[in-house]
């Protein structure tokens, strides 16, 4: 019997759902602790500005791909700046994926051990998690798309509901002062927001697989950005509203504490932070699955193989070793910073530079309007 999940294409709407799950759990759980110390009261502006910045980057990714219909970056990049620079670019792309994924896996292990399984060694948590992720990553694209859709609908509603419920503790005075605006902080916050919007980079590999006869791809991507913005703004309102800017600055997982603070009088409902953690796990899982898959397909295409699975196994081992080296908190924080710089540089400098070179060499691509 044929594998019904085996697919080589998806619709723009399916891409939007795939993009919507990538990094979203971290965006809700970790984003306030990262961005509020930088942009303070105006973090919401950074979130929106960051969305604009990375949406623009995503649009450039699409436009670049449109100049080479039916080809992925592995196929068209040698024609833009030669084979040597192509290898360098692909190494940076994979490096960005592996560094950010290792950071996420380490972060996953830390949170699970700290909040749930305090007697289980982090190595065991990470190893089991990566085994399951690798199993997901060796599947076909169709299976991964289906998993992403299921997990999105499984996780997003409880996550949003918990954030909404935490609004009972907010105080509006905590959102003030609106002025003066800390412009440097806002811009820095927007740049720092990359790890919470990443995911559009899959377009470099998957764009040829998107069947664009129906929905506009840019509009579909915009809807995913809106989804991420909504959840992040909810997380900000919940955390700053209930704990003030100074409070959020001093807390490692502010969203969890905001949800832990929910106490509904007359009911037994409490310690809802556990449910927030449970709704975050599927997001974390599918994010890692997708990135191992993308890194594997990239090099599978580069070397001209048809089967991405050996690469998935190799990258999983690399991610395990890399995440194991991040147990020390200061090294972990350095790596978070490095991954952010890599991601920002790749999205906002390298790929747009490639697009500029294409436009310079070829003028307008034929699909440009």
């Amino acid at each position, binding site marked *: 019997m044929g594998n019904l999940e085996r697919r080589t294409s998806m619709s723009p709407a399916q891409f939007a759902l795939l993009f919507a799950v990538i990094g979203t759990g971290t965006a809700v759980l970790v984003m306030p602790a990262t961005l509020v110390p930088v942009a303070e009261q105006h973090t919401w502006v950074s979130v929106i500005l960051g969305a604009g910045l990375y949406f623009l980057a995503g649009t450039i990714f699409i436009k670049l791909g449109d100049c080479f219909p039916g080809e992925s970056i592995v196929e068209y990049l040698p024609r833009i700046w030669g084979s040597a620079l192509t290898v360098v670019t692909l190494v940076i792309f994979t490096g960005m994926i592996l560094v950010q994924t290792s950071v996420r896996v380490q972060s996953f292990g830390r949170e699970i051990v*700290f*909040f*749930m*399984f*305090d*007697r*289980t060694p982090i190595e065991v948590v990470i190893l089991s998690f990566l085994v399951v992720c690798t199993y997901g990553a060796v599947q076909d694209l169709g299976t991964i798309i289906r998993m992403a859709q299921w997990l999105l609908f499984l996780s997003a509603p409880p996550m949003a509901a918990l954030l909404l419920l935490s609004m009972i503790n907010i105080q509006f*005075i905590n959102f*003030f*002062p609106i*002025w*003066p605006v800390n412009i440097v902080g806002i811009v820095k916050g927007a740049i720092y927001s990359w790890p919470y919007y990443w995911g559009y980079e899959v377009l470099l590999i998957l764009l040829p697989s998107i069947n664009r006869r129906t929905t506009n791809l840019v509009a579909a991507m915009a809807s995913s950005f809106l989804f991420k913005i909504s959840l992040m703004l909810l997380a900000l309102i919940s955390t700053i509203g209930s*704990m*003030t800017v*100074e*409070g959020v*600055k*001093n*807390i490692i997982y502010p969203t969890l*504490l905001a949800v*832990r*603070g929910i*106490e509904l*009088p007359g009911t037994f409902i*409490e*310690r809802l932070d556990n449910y927030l953690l449970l709704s975050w796990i599927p997001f974390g899982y599918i994010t890692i699955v997708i990135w191992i898959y993308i890194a594997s397909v990239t090099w599978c295409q580069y070397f001209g193989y048809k089967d991405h699975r050996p690469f998935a196994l190799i990258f999983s081992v690399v991610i395990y070793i890399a995440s194991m080296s991040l147990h020390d908190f200061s090294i972990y924080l350095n790596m978070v910073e490095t991954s952010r710089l890599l991601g920002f540089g790749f999205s906002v400098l390298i790929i747009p530079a490639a697009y500029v070179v294409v436009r310079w060499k070829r003028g307008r691509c034929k699909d440009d309007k």
Partner: protein
Amino acid sequence: MISKSSRTVTGYIVLVLISTLLLTGCWDRHEIQDRSFVLAVAVDLADEGLEHSTKLETFAQGGTPKPLRLSLQVLALAPQTRGENKPSKTYVISNTGRSMHEMLRDANGQNSKPLWFEHIQSIIISEAAVRKFGLTPLIDLFRRDAEVRWRTKVYITPQDARQFLDFVPPTGEAGGIFMSNISRQEKDLHIAGTNTDLGATSVRLDNKTDVVLPAIELSGKQIKVNAMAVFKKDKFVEYWDEYTIKGAKLLLGIEKAALIAFQCPLHPDETVVFEMFQQDTTVTPHIEGEQISFTVDIAMRGNISEISCSGEHDATDKTFMDKSEALFAQEVQRNIEHSLRVMQNAGVDDAGFGRNLKAYEPKTWAKIKDRWDEVFPTIPLTTHVRVSIQNTGEHK
């Protein structure tokens, strides 16, 4: 000859059976009967002598002094038969040391099961301990520990905190739960039960603002939450009585159901009581040159709940109503002015004026934040109160 599909099916079945060996349950589980639930914590200064201590209630710690005593009220879990409703049983274990975590860890040596802190309901700290060490170091562990609830109630007592853990409530509840529930009656309590728990205190400490916590006292077989302990940042200052707290709550707009009593205008020996059930408060800062002032506008609604000379009045009479509304408003104003005076004398900004300036007049705040301690006691307040009586109860 076994066909290929049969081999595949057999392979899957074997795989599923083997995988069940790995799915026998979470090995990291903590069974409920294998834990000791800590319901309340008391922090005192360690005894000078061994009046309350045994020689086992301490541990080797490199010869460093052991100035603190940590006591834990632990729930004694016992099976109950169907329909039975036995009172909860608790016991207390205690330890001395300097670090809370070390004392907790060492206290395991006095218990047959690991101590579990997820259900701590109340933390009681003696005034002597906070006077000596400040609040921050005494609650730091509870702010860090992921097990501890954000809504755990924190109390200060002028007495020894340890003795509260021996208190046996008449309701059959465990003492820690009983004490915590007192502060949960936010509508029916004279003091501030909300915004004074562990989470709210943690946020205040992070903001470097002044802290207030409910005070608790024990007398014989009774306990009462009857005042607020006031801190300048995390340093203990003094206690405020119920009247002061009521004024502060009215000023902050967080009062849920205040009782406001005034002398009957026609019968000076008698009392009329108004029960407020809704309050809208707007606090506005004003800046004129160097002078900072505030106005507070309060609109409140409620019912007349008691008239001790009721036989002499028709409570629904318009003249009586109008006069009562004016007198209630006067009393609220007097109460607020009293509370502000107490706050300014103590130099403790529980009115949230600093927070208000920071939010709505950030430029002014930036200029004066470093000398706020000098500015706050000089700030004048203008109060406007409007009272609307909605009902007079079942009787005229």
